[in-house]
């Protein structure tokens, strides 16, 4: 046996590991400009994006038809000649793509690249949260998307059936809404009349599984038909590449903010090489009818089928991306601004612990923090406001933080829901001391909200006044609706995500002391929160809304009956009618007045939500950095940034 020298062994093992780490560590020079995102990028696929930090990267590596002014967020020239040609009825936009617009591999940017990108935003599978921006505005887009989504439902159900698996009520109902159902129905033993009823759906599901139908054959027929139909149907969407450089977009109705929309990430182009990674064989569709791409497409490295790596047309391109560690962007040599860009490389670093990010900023490891959501953000706000730290800025954002009531379900988890009564909602809204929340609990310089649309952000829009706290009236209202001093009120569930902890505890306390209500706090992580909310398992839930474009409709559309984001389930015919009239009005003043009337219904009468505050977001920019401006959307183009070292 060899000599016993444990410390020598352990010590040399330690040395070996250290040497190994040393040779694996990064020895690249630091980037010209470094900034931090607390949670990392969710996705770099513009069609699937929902988060500001993703938008920020996307808008630096891609360029839309228009771009957003770094200070005001107003549309300005992008990949197309600005301003585009607009027809007198304001329904047809003709974009002329610049000759010097190039992809990062040198290819010219074509009109077809935009159609490809936009279509990805519509197709089920690639498009997710923002598809409504197309369907609300572009001719034929809604019909196409509806048709595709229905077909997906039916194809999914049939795919399951052809493999011999049962389907559930919802799948059966999706199938019953598809054209093929008439043919199927003739095969079933008896006629089925399907409304949107769960029991009927279940019965139908059972009968479909038992029916003597060759699902394999039927599925293939429907699938082939669908694939053949797609091209024809998409041609009806109001997007046309007249030639390589000319894109014509037809709108449903005049849209005063359309050029603002075209700078939004969903409207970015997509290079042709991405089709190399499309899955689903020749048809380009999965068996469920979805359009799916290999996730490799957003990475800089080479992929299968000869994919050259992510090609973009913006000022920067992605040169390295390590999961939740770092994303490095380097200047795109084919971009027209290449010569003028002071920062050739940009590092987006990830610090899960934002407090650590702030300390790294203090230590000079980082030049810019686009958000400082730390537990002591009140101190940051104070330093910024008193001018003690001129490098801390407060950005007023185009966003509202609110609590929404469940206004539809009569019972929630075996408890009666008092909030179907608008008076109770109003009483709860009147009992909230918003000033205390903004100035005592949060102390970070947010603006107290009495309205849903942030007031003053939109020229020509006059926000309603909203209501101030009035505990006496609140008690009175509660008594009128049959709950004097909160007696008889069931325990109210307040659903929120961890970041709302302090606000929700304060709210619960206010309702308990001011109204005598009993409040049950329920904190959930974002994904389970989303599910609870979608299943309406709440009485009051937190919510926030960031305006997507500069128009009141980006906020007010949420309370349209049946809107996918109408979490409170609020439905009022008068409100719907007001929005509808506004949509069809060509007179801009008239339109804004109608919208203000609609907002008044929400924030002065019916209260599907209690607006609490409009966010003020603190950001930190090192004094050595120039060319970076606070703006309401927190989109920061880095091409103008230079850092003195």
């Amino acid at each position, binding site marked *: 046996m060899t000599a016993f020298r444990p410390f020598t062994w352990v010590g040399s093992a330690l040395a070996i590991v250290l040497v190994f780490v040393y040779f694996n560590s990064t020895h690249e020079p630091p980037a010209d400009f470094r900034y931090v995102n607390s949670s990392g990028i969710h996705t770099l696929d513009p069609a699937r994006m929902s988060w500001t930090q993703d938008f920020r990267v996307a808008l630096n590596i891609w360029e839309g038809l228009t771009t957003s002014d770094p200070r005001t967020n107003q549309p300005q020239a992008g990949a197309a000649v600005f301003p585009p040609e607009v027809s007198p009825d304001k329904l047809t936009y003709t974009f002329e793509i610049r000759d010097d617009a190039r992809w990062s591999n040198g290819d010219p940017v074509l009109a077809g690249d935009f159609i490809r990108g936009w279509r990805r935003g519509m197709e089920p599978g690639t498009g997710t949260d923002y598809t409504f921006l197309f369907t609300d505005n572009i001719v034929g887009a809604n019909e196409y998307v509806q048709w595709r989504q229905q077909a997906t439902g039916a194809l999914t159900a049939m795919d399951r059936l052809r493999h011999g698996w049962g389907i559930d009520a919802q799948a059966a109902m999706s199938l019953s809404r598809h054209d093929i159902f008439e043919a199927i129905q003739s095969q079933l033993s008896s006629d089925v009349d399907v409304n949107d009823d769960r029991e009927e759906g279940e019965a139908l599901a059972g009968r479909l599984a038992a029916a003597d139908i060759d699902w394999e054959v039927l599925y293939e027929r429907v699938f082939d038909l669908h694939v053949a139909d797609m091209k024809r149907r998409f041609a009806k969407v109001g997007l046309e590449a007249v030639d390589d450089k000319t894109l014509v977009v037809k709108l449903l109705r005049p849209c005063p903010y359309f050029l603002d929309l075209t700078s939004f990430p969903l409207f970015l182009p997509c290079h042709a090489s991405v089709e190399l990674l499309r899955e689903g064989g020749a048809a380009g569709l999965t068996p469920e009818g979805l359009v799916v791409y290999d996730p490799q497409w957003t990475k800089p490295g080479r992929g299968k089928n000869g994919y050259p790596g992510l090609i973009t047309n913006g000022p920067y391109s992605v040169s390295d991306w390590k999961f939740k560690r770092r994303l490095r962007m380097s200047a795109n040599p084919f971009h027209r601004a290449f010569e003028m860009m002071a920062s050739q490389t940009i590092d987006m670093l990830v610090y899960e612990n934002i*407090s650590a990010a*702030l300390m790294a900023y203090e230590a000079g490891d980082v030049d810019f923090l686009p958000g400082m959501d730390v537990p*002591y953000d009140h101190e940051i706000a104070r330093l910024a406001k008193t001018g003690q730290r001129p490098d801390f800025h407060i950005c007023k954002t185009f966003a509202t933080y609110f609590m929404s009531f469940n206004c539809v379900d009569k019972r929630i988890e075996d408890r009666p829901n008092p909030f179907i009564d608008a008076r109770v909602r109003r009483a709860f809204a009147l009992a909230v001391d918003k000033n205390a929340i903004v100035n*005592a609990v949060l102390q970070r310089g947010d603006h107290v909200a009495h309205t849903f649309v942030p007031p003053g952000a939109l020229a020509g829009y006059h926000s309603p006044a909203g209501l101030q706290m009035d505990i006496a009236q609140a008690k009175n209202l509660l008594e009128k609706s049959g709950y004097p001093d909160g007696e008889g009120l069931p325990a109210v569930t307040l659903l929120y995500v961890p970041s709302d902890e302090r606000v929700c*505890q304060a709210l619960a306390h206010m309702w308990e002391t001011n109204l005598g209500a009993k409040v049950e706090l329920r904190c959930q992580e974002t994904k*389970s929160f989303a599910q609870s909310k979608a299943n309406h398992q709440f009485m009051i839930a937190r919510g926030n809304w960031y305006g997507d474009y500069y128009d009141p409709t980006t906020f007010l559309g949420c309370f349209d009956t049946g809107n996918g984001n109408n979490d409170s389930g609020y439905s009022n015919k008068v409100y719907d009618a007001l929005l509808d009239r506004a949509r069809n009005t060509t007179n801009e003043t008239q339109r804004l007045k109608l919208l203000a009337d609609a907002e008044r219904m929400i924030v002065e009468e019916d209260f599907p939500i209690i607006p609490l505050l409009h966010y003020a977001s603190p950001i930190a920019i090192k004094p050595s950095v120039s060319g970076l401006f606070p703006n309401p959307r927190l989109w920061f183009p880095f091409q103008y940034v230079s850092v003195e070292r």
Partner: protein
Amino acid sequence: MTNGAADSLVSGRKSCWLRFCANRFAVVGLVVFATVLLIALASLPWTTRWYNVQSLDSAVRAAPMTLPAVAFDAYGKALNHGVRSDWPRLDRFAWRATSWMGHDDLGRSLLCRILPATLLSLIIGGCAAFVAVVVGSTWGATAALMGGRVDAMMMRMVDVLYSLPYILMVILMKVAITRPLTSLLDGHAMLAQLIILVVAIGGVSWLTLARVVRGQVLSLRTQPFVEAARANGAGVFYLLRRHILPNVAGPIVIYATLVIPQAILQESFLSFLGIGVQQPIPSLGRLAADGVESVNAFVGFWWLIAFPCGALVVTLIALNFIGDGVRDAIDPKSSQATLI
């Protein structure tokens, strides 16, 4: 050491206690622990009323010893003008005491939160240890008594569970069973949470005990007195109750005292990750984690960090001292560290 062996022959509870008392650390631990427990229990009439009373004004993050402008009446309702002279003397003292550790970011008295938090953490630790002891000793004893294939099977299962990354399992269990259990215990969200924590933490801590108990029982099975009892026709339960359990009580007690601080520590990790006890109910881990989050280079709310962390560490150290003392007292020859 030779005396120790003689001692254990005479043995008995008294000598155990004497050995425990001879251990300086253990005695200090016991005294500290008893004091903390006593204060926490004695203050319950006030802390249960005041732990969530907020005053969103001058008291928000007020430093220790600064009394807020708002006082609370005996029912926790905020009053506007300081302490009321018509209160009983004890209440007035209690109200002044609320500011001793400062106030948190909602103007709640930190002292009024730390005291019940200590109790709650101890309850979680105790219950988790109880779960671990019950499951572990039943499992181990059953395996040993059944013997043969059953024994092999049961112990293999323990081996398999040993290979699970158990901290991950705690997290997974906590996340997975929260909803079904909450709906099962409709309306008792607090109870459901405690049960989940206890089951999740206790559910992964019983493995070592199962092994230890099995080993003890196996060796006991062949002891003459057990064989004699069996020859006299004693049943399995009789054997367990009269002969086996009293003789494995030592290792079980040792183990239980070590599981309690472990469980408290694990609860604090869960709280740090944001999946511990739900607000506004305080637990030590939760308070400490909240405090640690506010470590920064700008402004030091030192009391939000120092007091909860201090309470947590002092409780854990006291418990570990006691655990060490108990082990040395019960099993003075133990050289094999009881590792969890």
